């Protein structure tokens, strides 16, 4: 005679009870799992993309200096590099060359950058997976691009960036700095912007302030500001998605509330029988609670596992347009599977606990019925 056996028997009966009303319970579990799936997908995807972006930006320069002309981003003169190098605490001050290229035939916007070290040969380019897909190009192909003067220049593709880097390289075209200057018409002594690193990260704000004072026509952008922008962008998008799905969640809540809180006459009669044959009120409640726990755990694990597969193995195909943006070039990348236990726990408490509680309340009121009531039925 043990507590373990007693609960095992009660769980056995709860399972058999669920089996008897399997159509109702299956429908409930499927809808419940769908809601968990949706919420978990949004949470997993948003967090994974944010942490990927954070990982990528970790290697980015701490400060980017852009020149402003009439409040707009303009080319920055090479002479500014010397001014920046003289600021105490700065290191690796470099001019960057980059720009955007709109390809009318595909409707895609590519990011064109000057190659770093080792530089590409003049006349050659390296392209991202997204560019390769939209232009249907591979290594060895010649791609004609329309320059700023309206003439076409052909570049040979010598490399296509790997899938692993697709999140950051999907829309990228890398070419020799001289080719880029000629292609966009950037003068010799100008850059798109200047990047710099700081020896002591605590001095970032001070250095940024000095830059603003020494070069009043520029704006320094800190890496942390970019990170915050990414965070708020994806938070905003996931919020948008949650609002869209709020209708589904509300429908589920009404459905679940109705199913969980309204015991059928048959269920009430059964509870009366259990009481009459020797079950305590607490045992009847335990049995009904187990039913609720089994349904909500099945839905929670089912929904969470499906969301995991959806996000990390299927690139979140259901709502990627919302979360990644409406660009022509969807990066096709596999997110690194990772789960924040706190978020899973929060999801658990937001889904399993309310449902289980919702099932216990009506059970409690029905289970406190006098056992002799069954004798008068």
């Amino acid at each position, binding site marked *: 005679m043990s507590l373990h*056996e*007693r609960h*095992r028997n009660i769980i056995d009966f709860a399972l058999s009870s669920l089996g008897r009303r399997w159509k109702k319970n299956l429908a409930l579990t499927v809808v419940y799992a769908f809601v968990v799936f949706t919420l978990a997908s949004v949470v997993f995807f948003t967090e994974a993309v944010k942490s990927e972006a954070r990982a990528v930006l970790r290697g980015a320069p701490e400060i980017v200096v852009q020149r402003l002309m009439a409040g707009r981003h303009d080319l920055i003169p090479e002479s500014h590099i010397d001014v920046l190098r003289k600021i105490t605490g700065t290191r690796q001050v470099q001019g960057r060359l980059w720009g955007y290229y709109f390809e009318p035939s595909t409707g895609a916007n590519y990011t064109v950058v000057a190659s770093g070290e080792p530089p590409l040969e003049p006349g050659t380019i390296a392209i991202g997976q997204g560019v390769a897909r939209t232009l249907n190009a591979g290594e060895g192909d010649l791609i004609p691009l329309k320059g700023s003067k309206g003439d076409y220049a052909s570049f040979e593709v010598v490399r296509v960036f790997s899938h692993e880097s697709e999140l950051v390289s999907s829309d990228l075209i890398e070419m020799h700095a001289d080719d880029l200057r000629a292609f966009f018409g950037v003068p010799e002594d100008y850059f798109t912007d200047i990047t710099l690193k700081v020896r002591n990260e605590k001095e970032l704000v001070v250095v940024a302030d000095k830059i603003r004072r020494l070069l009043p026509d520029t704006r320094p952008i800190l890496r942390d500001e970019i990170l915050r922008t990414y965070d708020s962008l994806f938070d905003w998008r996931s919020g948008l998605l949650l609002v869209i799905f709020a209708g589904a969640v509300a429908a589920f809540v009404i459905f679940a509330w109705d199913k969980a809180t309204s015991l059928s006459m048959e269920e009430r009669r059964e509870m009366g*029988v259990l009481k009459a044959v*020797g079950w*305590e009120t607490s*045992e009847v409640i335990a049995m009904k609670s187990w039913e609720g726990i089994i349904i909500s755990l099945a839905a929670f694990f089912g929904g969470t596992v499906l969301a995991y597969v959806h996000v990390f193995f299927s690139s979140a195909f259901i709502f990627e347009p919302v979360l990644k943006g409406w660009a022509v070039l969807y990066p096709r990348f596999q997110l690194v599977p990772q789960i924040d236990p706190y978020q899973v726990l929060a999801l658990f408490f937001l889904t399993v606990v309310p449902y289980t509680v919702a099932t216990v309340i009506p059970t409690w009121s029905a289970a406190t019925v006098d056992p002799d009531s*069954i*004798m008068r039925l």
Partner: protein
Amino acid sequence: MVELKNITKVFNRNRPDEFTALEDVSLLVEERKVTVFKGPSGSGKTTLLSIVGAMAKPTSGRVLVGAREITSLPERFLTEVRRRTFGFIFQQFHLIRGISALENVMLPAYTTGEKHAALRERALRLLELFGLSAKARARVEWLSGGEAQRVTIARALVNDPKVIIADEPTAHLDTKLSKDFLGIMERLNAEAKTILIASHDPLVYESTMVDHIIEMRDGRIRGSGPAE
């Protein structure tokens, strides 16, 4: 065995529909005897049985099971007394639909903490005793009236209670099945079980196995004596 002292049971107290089901009933249920409560519908037989069987508490008066007073026991202990001492056979059977006869028989013992395998074995033996081995795995809604009642009897016996309480057990049975039921009760009585039956069926209260008849009307005991 079970003693009732000045039991009164009032339903819906202090409400317009207040109803006194039992009034000042005192009674001693003798051990190992067959006692029949007879009387018309509404005479208080079912209410009396539910108080004897620790299913309901009286509004006033005292109930003693053995030497123990159970009137003031909290639900938990009262349930334990009910589970260990009484087995119930209901007029409507009240089997749980959708599960097998075997599971229905095991149901009262699920909460005792007994090992599932041992419990199953015991329930199977009981079904075998009533000739229902072949129907053990059949759902109860597929059983005939007589079979369903025998499952109910097996369920009442699964915790090996000292007292069997049957409320109008022959109400839904034909003469042959009623006689079968009485035969089973006689057998159980011979095995030292105390039998309490509420019935207004002459087949029951005129049965030779009955030791004691208590006649009820309007919530009071109107007559009591040994069966003729």
